């Protein structure tokens, strides 16, 4: 176990070796606890500063959550996009209105979070969020990379665990 501790994740205890390590835990996300995986590419270079910086993100998850939901909403009009297909499935349910994008976006709930804070330029993703809907088997994936280009939504829908 390293002597690095996160205010949100607790002691950073990575499995794996010099080639990279990971730990899993549940993180408070709104009113839920979301299964979260932290992957560190360079355990030898892990510092308290890196985790302190990460804590600021984890303590303000409403920011990536808002960005992710905005990205999903933006892609709903795009034919063939994952948000469009998920929205189409959702809107076929009895209580949904085909035009109710805001309600759809608000109904999304985070189901998984992957954090890769030291991916460098090889892996630009820093936080990857999975969102699902109650009663639906498929989920949409939103990547928040280290980039000026903003969030990216995967084209593929994935099955909920």
């Amino acid at each position, binding site marked *: 176990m390293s002597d690095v501790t996160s205010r949100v994740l607790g002691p950073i205890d990575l499995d794996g070796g010099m080639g990279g390590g990971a730990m899993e835990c549940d993180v408070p996300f709104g009113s839920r606890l979301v299964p979260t995986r932290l992957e560190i590419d360079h355990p030898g270079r892990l510092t308290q500063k890196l985790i302190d910086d990460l804590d600021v993100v984890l303590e303000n998850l409403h920011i990536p959550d808002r960005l992710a939901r905005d990205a999903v909403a933006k892609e709903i009009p795009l034919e063939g996009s994952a948000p469009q297909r998920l929205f189409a499935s959702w809107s076929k349910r009895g209580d949904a209105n085909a035009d109710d994008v805001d309600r759809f976006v608000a109904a999304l709930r985070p189901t998984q979070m992957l954090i890769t804070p030291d991916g460098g330029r090889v892996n630009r993703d820093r936080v990857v969020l999975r969102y699902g809907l109650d009663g639906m088997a498929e989920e949409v994936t939103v990547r928040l990379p*280290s*980039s*000026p280009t903003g969030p990216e939504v995967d084209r593929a829908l994935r099955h909920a665990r």
Partner: protein
Amino acid sequence: MWGECVSDYEDLSTIVGQMKRAAIDCWMADQEFYPVSGNEGTYCKWGWAPYQYTRPNDDGSGGGEGVGWNVSCAAAFDDIRATVDGVVERWFGLPDGSACDAPSAATRTTASILGSSAAGASVQNGNAIATSNGTINAVVLGNMEGAFRRPFLGKYYTAFSSVQGGLAQASVILQANYAAEGAMWGAVKSDVAKICADAKNAWAAQAQSASAASMQFQLSVATAVAGAVASVVTAPTGLGVVVAGLSATAVGLNTALAKVNADVAVGGSSYDEILGSLQDALQTLSETIRSQEQALDSALREAASAMTAEPADYDLDAVKLDGYPLDDGAMRMDETDAGIVSDNMSLVHEQLTEAAAALGTGPSSSPTPRNAGIGLSSTGTHASASQLHGVTASCLQRTRNEYELGRQLFDATVADFFAADATARQTVQQLLADEALTGQA
């Protein structure tokens, strides 16, 4: 988002301001901070995380303060700005080369009057001296008799022809220098602006996580200077042509400049790499200018040195008049032929006077001053050009005066032959005595 692209040297201050902001953007991007979409006055960690710093203005000033956090990286921004200034500042205030126009035209006129074929076809009266000289030789050799012909033609035809050619070549080398310096700086300005703009664009592209290809190009100053000199110095062609003396120096200059062929590349995948490529590119530019000015300087020094070492090839006053017999009993000429020779010697003298007047005194200060560290020195080739200019002007002035004495000697010889003037013999003897005193040999 990244500002207008400016690549004109006259806007270098603007370019440098844009470079500073692009460099800081890139430095921040190296640490995964990016301008926030919709709020481009700040950087965010990863482009979205809640760590924000203010971004510099378009002109590169300001920025670096934490937003909502009591932190600052303004000192690091200041260091980057100072670094960019340090790399670029010596390239401000470059000359435009226009001060070379007058000396270039003056030396061109002098070279043309002295009969250099390399002076340009558009210049009038390029063959006047050679034509008169040929007439003098033909008339004295073909129509006159007497032992005086050998020393007379030896100095005032054969040796003078050599001096005339030498002075013409010295003028061509001077002209090549001024033409090169005149053509150089517009190209240098263009190269500086392009290098800086490329660095700015590379930083901007890298800051956007878009790895730009390294921008490679040939410095325009290389071809500009080589072209300017090649238009002045024309290498003799044909089999068996032996290029000697200052012609060899001029052709050597041409060859040396044609070999200067500098490529630069600006780019990289981080702030530091792009900064290094910027420094390297500007250093290559400086070294290219230095190589070119070194070639010019060497030609100028070589010419001045040759003129000092072998004065008889460039200064008629340094040519000894061999024994000048008046009473060999074989002298024969008619007055018309004598008049033709005298008239043509007057024409040559007039041409030499015009050539000397055109050459003038040259620039009193460097026509291409620039900051230290660019090219050969802050004054470029001025010292060597001034030296050659001075030597050439002195030799031309003395040659003109000496040639005039030769004309007077010929006229007195003719007067003595026809016994037209009772004092003619005395005049001849006085001129010969003066010649013996002033001749260098």
